[in-house]
Structure formats: structure tokens, C-alpha cells
């Protein structure tokens, strides 16, 4: 027997999906306006504001900057997360639970608190406004996401595979590279992806520690919106939405969205 949704369920569902899509559709629609102010396109679609982005290096620069930052911090985070995840998944030792809670603790700290903590601390040690500081802060914020996904694939690992490799004379490093790493690869890939996206989208913490020369795209968009909401910033946002839609389809094929998200969520 298969349970179906009744009419009430389907009406609710339709309204819910409308609610979810409304603001995104709105951004995408307004971006095609030909007017110089916020309005829905009235006489035909215009690419005027998308062209305007290309003449606005500030947004392009911030976009490229965010890509690089996300790439770097996700890569560092995954490299740090793999050994920690293996430690927690493969060993039983006193303090194991506490260690895991500690590694996941950045999820519990509001980003606004992290933002001003980093600003204060970086000012004290003299790295405020530097690229180094921003990368470090982003690594800390994305490690828990990477760790969770690596951990979930490392937990199901059969320890006898590793023992077999070691007993056949493989060094611990070879065992890791040829046996363990390929087996946890799905977790590593999805962990890197979610870490990258989290870094790319991060605003609240970055706004405290970004300087004019280290401005991420979300910070650039936020500062622009605080000043004025115009079709230009809408077009930038619409371009981001389109890129994300493409990314979502690729991700769904590669790792499966559900897997990526169960365990996302920061509190």
C-alpha cells in the first residue's frame, strides 16, 4: 500500500514551494529590467544590468576573491579534518567524545561572535585586514562541516582492510594513501564541497575581518545593499543564483544533495 497526499497536503505543498521560490524568482526577474530603477521588466527582457556587472570590476574582483578563498580554506580544512576524523572514528580513548564536541564547537558559536572575536584577536597580533587572517578564520568555520562528512564515511570503514595492508608489509602512509583514502573518498569530496560553499557564502563573520583589499562577494553585496538596492546588485545576485542552480544539478549527480545536507545545519 502506498500512501498518497490528499488535496490539503498538495495545496499546502504548492503554497510552500511558492514561498520558497518567490524571493529567488523575484531577484531573477528584476535583474532583466531595462529601467534604471527596481522594477519588473515591462517591455521585453534586457541584459543591460548583466552587461553593467562586467563594467564593475568591484563585483568581479570580489567574486574571484571569494572563489580563491573558498578553494583555499576548504582544502586546508579537509586536510586538517581527515586525520582528526580518523582519530575519532578508529580509536576508542578517554576524551574522545570531548574531542569531537570541541572540533564541532564552531557550529555552536554565532558567527557574529566569531567575527568580533577574530577582529579583536587579529588586531592584537597585528594581522587584522590581511588575507592570512581571513583564511584562518574561514578554515575554523568550515572545519566542522568537513569533519562531519569525513567522519560519517570513516565510521563505516572495516578495520580489517587496514590491518591486512599493514600485515602485508605496507607502511602506514601507503596504507592510508592506497586503502583508507580511496574508501573515505565520498566523504572527503562532499566534505570539501560543503566547506567550499560555506566559505563562499559566509557573510556575518567575514564582514568584521574583511578589509577593502580582502572583500568577499557576500560582503561586497551586503555593503552595496546597505547603501542602495539597485538593479545592478540584483543582477549580481541573479547571476549567483544561476550559478548555484548549475552547481546544484552537478552536485546532485556527483554526491546526492540529501547526503550533502544531512548533517549540514549549524546551531
Amino acid at each position, binding site marked *: 500500500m502506498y500512501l498518497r497526499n490528499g488535496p490539503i497536503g498538495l495545496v499546502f505543498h504548492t503554497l510552500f514551494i511558492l514561498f520558497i521560490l518567490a524571493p529567488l524568482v523575484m531577484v531573477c526577474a528584476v535583474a532583466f529590467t531595462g529601467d534604471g530603477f527596481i522594477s519588473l521588466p515591462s517591455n521585453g527582457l534586457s541584459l543591460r544590468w548583466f552587461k553593467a556587472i562586467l563594467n564593475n570590476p568591484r563585483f568581479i574582483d570580489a567574486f574571484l576573491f571569494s572563489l580563491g578563498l573558498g578553494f583555499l580554506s576548504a582544502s586546508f580544512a579537509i586536510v586538517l579534518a581527515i586525520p582528526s576524523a580518523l582519530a575519532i572514528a578508529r580509536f576508542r580513548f578517554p576524551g574522545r567524545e570531548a574531542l569531537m564536541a570541541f572540533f564541532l564547537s564552531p557550529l555552536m558559536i554565532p558567527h557574529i*561572535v566569531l567575527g568580533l572575536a577574530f577582529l579583536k584577536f587579529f588586531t592584537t597580533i597585528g594581522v587584522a585586514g590581511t588575507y592570512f587572517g581571513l583564511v584562518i578564520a574561514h578554515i575554523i568555520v568550515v572545519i566542522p562541516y568537513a569533519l562531519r562528512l569525513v567522519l560519517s564515511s570513516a565510521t563505516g570503514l572495516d578495520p580489517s582492510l587496514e590491518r591486512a595492508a599493514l600485515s602485508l608489509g605496507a607502511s602506514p602512509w601507503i596504507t592510508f594513501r592506497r586503502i583508507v583514502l580511496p574508501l573515505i573518498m565520498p566523504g572527503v569530496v562532499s566534505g570539501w564541497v560543503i566547506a567550499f560553499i560555506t566559505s563562499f557564502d559566509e557573510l556575518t563573520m567575514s564582514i568584521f575581518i574583511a578589509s577593502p583589499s580582502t572583500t568577499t562577494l557576500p560582503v561586497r553585496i551586503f555593503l552595496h545593499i546597505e547603501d542602495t538596492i539597485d538593479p545592478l546588485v540584483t543582477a549580481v545576485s541573479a547571476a549567483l543564483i544561476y550559478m548555484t*542552480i548549475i552547481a546544484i544539478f552537478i552536485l546532485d549527480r556527483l554526491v546526492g544533495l540529501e547526503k550533502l545536507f544531512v548533517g549540514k545545519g549549524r546551531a
Partner: protein
Amino acid sequence: MIKPSQAPWLLSAPALTLYATFLIAPIASVFLISFFNFEFYGGIQVSFTLKNYIEILTDSYFYEVFARTFGVAFLVTLACVVLGTAEAYVLSRMRNPWKGLFLMVVLGPLLISVVVRTLGWALLFGSTGLISKGLQALGLAAGPVSLMYTNLGVGIALTHVMVPFMVISVWASLQKINPSTEAAALSLGASQFTVIRRVIVPQVMPGILSGAIMVFAMSASAFATPAIVGGRRLKTVATAAYDEFLNTLNWPLGSALAVLLLIATIIVLIATNRLIERRYGAVFN
């Protein structure tokens, strides 16, 4: 030779070192300067004073800020519980490919920056936006209506940002339910409503509660949405702390606000977690 008892600590040493230097120290420094003194002309002075905390706890302006922050967070949580649970239930009863498609539609926005999602609401909320025009066309409003700079507007936009987390949380619980419990109740003559109330909701309660905690904590500390939709007038704790840090430059006061927000969030998280574990730990594990 490495002893087995040392191995896990050696493996986690790099991440631990990073955390100790760049997480513990910054958080500790926020606690520290929240006790420092600030003079409008003299700047920050090293001292030990409870002045900042006393100011926050006694000033009616900050009372309002905290009340707004937690009030909005509570209502957003409530809205997310109702909408998110219902949507997760409807989704779980769909067939593929619809199930997969709509799950993607609901979860996809999590991959789009909050700033972009909030901008969408700002476009809808303005006095010339679609909501205002729609209400006027339906005759529900006499003139232009703006939801910008209102608590309702902040609440709606925040609900939109948070509700996917609720859906995931309940969805995960729903996957563990044996569908025959529902079929059994229906075949014994229970109405659909009774089935939801007596069979489904009790079984997904852990998912609802853990989702609710997450949504509450994240709403209480949200920054982008209250900053854009709430504007300069409707301050929340997060936007007030931002102001103290980057506009007034009163870092000690801003830090005290952050510390209070952090403590309040952690208390809520731990208290509710305890409650859930005591209530449901024995049944679901």
C-alpha cells in the same frame, strides 16, 4: 614507536593546535575586553569593570533589543516547526521523481548566500513591491504597504532562511519511521488527522525538537536578514553588536553584547538538549 594511546592525539594535533591558537584565544579575548572600560574620547582602557554589563542589563534600549531578538527568534521557530514539519511529511509521501525534485527545491536555497535570499524579500516587501501591489489589487489594503523595517518582515524573511533546516531535521526522523504504523492506524479506522497527531508527530518529535533548537539559535544570532530588512531602526543583538564594533567603536560594549548572546544561546542549546535526551533518549536510540 608510537603507542596506540597516543595515536589519536597525534592525528588530531594539527587541528587541535589551530583551534587552540585561533579559536580559544579569540573567544577568550572577547570575554576579556567585555570587562574593559570605554571612554568616548579616551578609547578602550584596560581595566576590570562590570560597567558594560550593567549598562546592557539596565538600559531600556538594550532590553528592547534583546526582547525583539528573542521574540522574533521564538516566532520564527514556531513558524518553522509548523511549516517545516508539514512540508517534510508531504515530501515523504511523494513518489520519485517529484520527491527528489522538490527536495532539491526546498534544500537548494541553503546553497545560496543569505544576502541574496534576503535581497529577494527586500524587493518583495517594498512599498512598490509585489506584496504591496497584490494586497491593493485584492482590496486588502487602501494604499501602498511596506513590510520593510517591520518585525513581521524580518520574521517572514528569517522563516524563509531557516525553514529548510527544519525540513531536513524532520525528514531525517521520518525516514526512520516504519510506514506500516501509519497503515495500521488507518486500517483500524483512524482519520488522517488522528494518524498525524497520534502516530506521526510523536515518532518524529526528536527531529522536530532538534530542528527547533537549531532554528532558534540561528535566528537569535542572525545578522544579514535583520540588518537588511530591519534596517537601522529595528536593532537585534547581532546588529547592535555590529554597530558598537564598526560604527561607535565601543568594542567593550559590543563584546559584552556578544558574550550575553553567546551565553544565552548556549544555555538554550544545552537545556533543551538535556530535556530531549531525558525525554526521548530511552525510546530512540
